[in-house]
């Protein structure tokens, strides 16, 4: 009998702390599978951020550091400069990366820091109870936009992939989704490419993953997948925004 699918060695045996149906778990698995398939688990050093994925250091089966809110790209910079031959990645949510950590992510990208950033965009602050994030859609209700996000009060959502792809230091940037199997396969390909951009010393790489938050969105996990497709994807178009890889796999 052949194994069609089994758990990757890139994950520890610690069960995920995420809510039922939250796609953080899928994204974790894809990152771990990508590292295992590229053969870099023994030389990977990850950086966990603050938010729902604060415990990511318990889940990835490699050396890990836990960073202060928003500072993961700076911490990763410190690690990568000490160990340029290692594979360094951060795993950050939208509050962490696109609000409190905006300076750190922009300058890590501008420096062409050879790190890989997994950016999980679920359009709200999950861990603290579903408050407005920089990526919250116009009109979207959150616990701090109870009447819906109003541009005249809260401004507009930030399209991180588009913004960072304007920087010369960015080597690989793609936005993906994980709401069905087809998109999950594409997401994994993107994550592998991002790691390859680092391994090939091309520069900064980032994969933005549109993710769900069934608990705070007040939906079933299945409804949440549909919401990503129907509401997030139109505002955050999927695709490759920057690619300097020698050969795209």
């Amino acid at each position, binding site marked *: 009998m052949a194994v069609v699918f089994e758990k990757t060695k890139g994950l*520890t045996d610690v069960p995920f702390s995420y809510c039922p149906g939250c796609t953080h778990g899928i994204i974790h698995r894809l990152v771990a599978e990508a590292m295992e398939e590229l053969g870099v*688990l*023994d*030389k*990977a*050093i990850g*950086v966990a951020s603050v938010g729902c994925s*604060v*415990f990511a*250091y*318990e889940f990835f*089966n*490699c*050396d*890990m*550091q*836990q*960073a*202060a809110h928003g*500072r993961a790209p*700076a*911490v*990763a*910079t*410190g*690690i*990568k*400069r*000490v*160990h340029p031959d*290692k*594979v360094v990645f951060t795993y950050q949510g939208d509050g962490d990366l696109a609000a409190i950590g905006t*300076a*750190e992510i*922009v*300058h890590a990208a501008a420096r062409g820091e050879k790190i890989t950033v997994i950016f999980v965009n679920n359009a709200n602050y999950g861990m603290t109870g579903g408050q407005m994030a920089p990526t919250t859609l116009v009109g979207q209700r959150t616990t701090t936009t109870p009447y819906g996000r109003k541009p005249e009060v809260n401004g507009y959502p930030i399209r991180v992939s588009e913004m960072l792809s304007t920087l010369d230091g960015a080597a690989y940037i793609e936005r993906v989704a994980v709401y069905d199997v087809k998109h999950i396969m594409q997401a994994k390909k993107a994550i592998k490419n991002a790691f390859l951009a680092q391994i090939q010393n091309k520069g900064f790489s980032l994969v933005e993953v549109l993710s769900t938050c069934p608990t705070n969105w007040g939906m079933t996990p299945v409804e949440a997948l549909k919401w990503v497709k129907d509401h997030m994807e139109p505002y955050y178009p999927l695709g490759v925004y920057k690619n300097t890889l020698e050969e795209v796999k």
Partner: protein
Amino acid sequence: MAKVLMKGNEAMAEAAIQAGCRYYFGYPITPQNEVTEYMSKRMPEVGGVFLQAESEVSAINMVYGAGGAGARVMTSTSGPGLSLMQEGISYLAGAQIPCVIVNIMRGGPGLGNIQGAQSDYFQSVKGGGHGDYKLIVLAPSTIQEMADLVQEAFDIADDYRNPVVILGDGMLGQMMEPVDFDNVKKTRRNLPEKTWATTGRGNREHRNVINSLYIDPPVLEKHNYVLFEKYKRAEQNEVRYEMVNCDDAEVILVAYGTMARVAKNVMNIARREGYKVGLIRPISLWPFPKEPFKKTVDQVKGYLVVEMSMGQMVEDVQLATECKKPVHFYGRPAGMIPEPSVMLEKIKQIAGGAR
């Protein structure tokens, strides 16, 4: 390298290089810019990394990453920058990452000015960031001592897995004096191997994790106790101070850093005028030296603490003397230097009038 004439800021940077520091992350701020500039020139020469960060917030977190990855790493800044670094410093202490942080103090609060001052004592010694933690804080008063203490600071940081602060001021940073790097004290410690560092797992059996998050209260409590055991060890082994003319002193001046140089001169003037005056110069501000006060408290009429601030270290002197004798204070903020004539006047008052 024979004796060279150097600015304090440059001497600290060179001392760091000679201590094996190969990673420096910083952000420009006066009056410590020579550290950053010197590092930008020297690091490439020794195969190290100099990186100008986008902010002090980033710089200290780069220090976190590099220190956690096992490197000897340093940053330097001045008051406003140190305020920005407090978050990262708390994380460094919590995650037990060794590093050296130089603060060349200037006048405050707020943007204040760029004159040398001593008003960041509380911030360095009493915390500054959130949570229960201690930094080992060393205060040099000459350029040679700046070089000596930077070298020592890296060893202490590695020994205790804790950030060490060099607390200088703008005057020391900018001043030029001869420094002899050949005679800088070399490592005497048996430093532990950094088996905890995140270097990539390689063939290691376990994963290394650098972390300050312990969500379970009893576990976090235990972690705090571990930290404080370490601090207790530092209190036993890392106290440093200088005592001058204290044996027969009836009045003892207490000062650190630049202020101690002024106090030493005032002490000599007072001695010439017939007053038995001594000087206690704390070198480690944390752990604070209590012994010199225990030794002298019975014999003196009082202490005069002089600081380039509105009075910060004076509180530790009051604690160390257990209020057994009067602790007087004279200080000026904002980069103004306390007047020797006023110090002399106060010494005379404490001693009980003219001789």
